[in-house]
């Protein structure tokens, strides 16, 4: 065999290669963290909660994922924190997996923040950290990925995956009834199938369709990427030469799905998206493609999480509610964006 044992030189070169990659990466970034485009709630004289209070430090950690939604989560959190004069924002990198995130969070605890906002890699694996922080007297705000243990968090704020499926199902169900289609052919392009959230979305979709007596004719799972969306959509269109409605779970992969639909010159059906990206909302407003609606799962929840974390740290409640403290659980409802309301939602697109 021609294999050499990795020598010291090999290790040096390997290190050099990775180092070069890192240096290049640092030089070529064109990331724009423009806070003016992020989804924040600004100061408002009529809102008692925005009045400056006790100075607090908010610790924040979210995975460094290569997905637009997670990127929006982090930039929203940062932007919202900078909107408050009484908030110091301390972000720690969450690294590649739950173990790395745990290590990063341990260093964060040592800095004694007043509250921690956390989007865990995995709710189950970070549950123990939540317990530990709460025991140490630091309230934990869990963002989107729930801890199984109710003692592990002070506040849970998350989107509604099941509700997303339900919203998409109802939109399609109503549209089919309005068109008087007795047994419509409905396709579904899901996201990464191994994720629980994908299963919840699909279940919500199927349950809502069932109330109209409809079911999904063909379901393909893509990978949340445009190229995988294109591939699955192209095959789905082959399998269903006549289609009445299509739900695509994710607007990012939807770019590929729409490309496949355009390439196949198909327009006999309506399509519903998912998540609520800026491009999808613009496409819906323009009304020039089969995309007629999208159901939200908005990363604006990160902005809200920071606002609520601030109130928790300051010991204040939500001004509109009677209670003197912030509630323990908030589940955002999944909203349906159509041509009619697209202009109001455009600022929430990411």
């Amino acid at each position, binding site marked *: 065999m*021609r294999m050499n044992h990795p020598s010291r030189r090999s290790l040096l*070169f390997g290190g050099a290669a990775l180092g070069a990659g890192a240096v290049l990466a640092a030089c070529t970034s*064109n990331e724009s963290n423009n806070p003016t485009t992020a989804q924040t709630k600004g100061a408002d004289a009529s809102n008692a909660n925005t009045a400056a209070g006790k100075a607090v430090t908010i610790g924040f950690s979210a995975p460094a994922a290569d997905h*637009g939604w997670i990127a929006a989560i982090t930039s929203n959190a940062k932007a919202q924190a900078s909107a408050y004069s009484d908030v110091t924002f301390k972000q720690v990198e969450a690294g590649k997996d739950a173990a790395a995130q745990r290590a990063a969070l341990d260093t964060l605890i040592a800095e004694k923040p007043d509250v921690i906002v956390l989007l865990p890699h995995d709710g189950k694996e970070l549950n123990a950290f939540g317990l530990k922080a709460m025991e140490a007297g630091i309230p934990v705000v869990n963002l989107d990925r729930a801890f199984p243990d109710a003692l592990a968090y002070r506040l849970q704020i998350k989107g509604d995956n099941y509700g997303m499926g339900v919203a998409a199902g109802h939109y399609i169900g109503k549209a089919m009834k309005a068109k008087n289609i007795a047994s419509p052919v409905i396709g579904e392009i899901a996201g990464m199938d191994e994720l629980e959230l994908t299963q919840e979305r699909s279940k919500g979709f199927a349950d809502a369709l069932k109330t109209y007596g409809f079911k999904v004719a063909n379901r393909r799972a893509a990978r949340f990427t*445009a190229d995988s969306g294109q591939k699955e959509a192209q095959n789905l269109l*082959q399998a269903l*030469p006549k289609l009445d409605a299509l739900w695509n779970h994710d607007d990012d992969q939807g770019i*590929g799905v729409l490309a*496949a639909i355009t390439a196949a010159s198909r327009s006999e059906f309506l399509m519903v998206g998912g998540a609520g990206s800026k491009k999808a909302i613009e496409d819906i407003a323009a009304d020039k493609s089969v995309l007629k609606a999208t159901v939200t799962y908005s990363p604006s929840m990160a902005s809200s999480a920071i606002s609520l974390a601030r109130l928790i740290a300051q010991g204040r409640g939500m001004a509109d509610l009677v209670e003197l403290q912030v509630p323990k659980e908030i589940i955002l409802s999944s909203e349906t964006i159509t041509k009619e309301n697209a202009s109001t939602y455009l600022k929430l697109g990411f």
Partner: protein
Amino acid sequence: MTAQTSVVERGGWWRTIPTESLWRNLGLVGVLVVLFVIGAIIRPDLYGDSDWVVNNMLVILQQAAAIGVVTVGVTFVIIGGGIDLSVGALIALAGVWSTTLATQSYGAGGMIFAAIAVGTIAGALNGLLIAYGRLVPFIATLAMLVAARGLAAQISGKQTQVSGNQFINGIATTRVAGIPMLVIILAVAAALGWVLLNRTTFGRRTVAIGSNAEAARLAGINVRRHTLLLYALSGLCCGIGAIMLTSLATSAQAAAAELYELDAIAAAIIGGTLLSGGRGTIVGSMFGVIVFSAITNLFAIANLPTEVQNMVKGGIIVLAVLIQQIRFRSLTALFRKP
């Protein structure tokens, strides 16, 4: 591997490759026929329509196009005794680089140049580390996989970059004489690859180095420079693949082309390329790619879940390698007897 077996292997190579590869390719055509028959049994309504059947075949070929071009490069690398795990990441990097707003402002030419240059340079960097830095190919290209995906994520700011260039987006929707442009690009790439492998000294040197690098060096071949060129070729193919994928998806992102490295290697392996190098055919690799593409298509037509599809894919890879080993063993036994 001892000198004895490699001599036998090379003896076997001259004698058996025409029939061996012919049988294997016929076997893969057989698999395609079986897939077609299964489809026709499950969905007679679709397969009874000849227009649909022709169109579906073109869809299968079109979906094989980008990964097919990449597999041409990977086949060369494997025949030359190496491995390239970075191809998916290089496609993502080349795709992202060519679709930044800055690159898009240079028009289609600038985007194509950027993708091809980024792919080739990154591939050459692989080759440099392996040939001159003496890194094991597995490690060098694994490092490139991680670094290139990271760089792609950094450049794109983790966002999906939409291509606003109508020429690039139009490549995937253009048909020439009814054949999708992407399929034509694949056919040209495969033909060039075939000529390069079978009709040039470059190809013969690749086989020689993959069979026995030391013997090739003693025979006067500049093994290091050739290895560098092989990885650069693989990177070039990734750059072309990136353009094709960007055109299909009208966008690029850091997570694109997920696991393309495994698909390309698997296609080459079931097409008859020896993982230890020294033997393989472009035609076989192309059949390998088309078989995988046809399986994905059939599973969609039959509305079967993706997880079953992945298990079937894995099973086929294991089966192909098993057959390869059994045939190889019986061949060596044949040559040892006298």
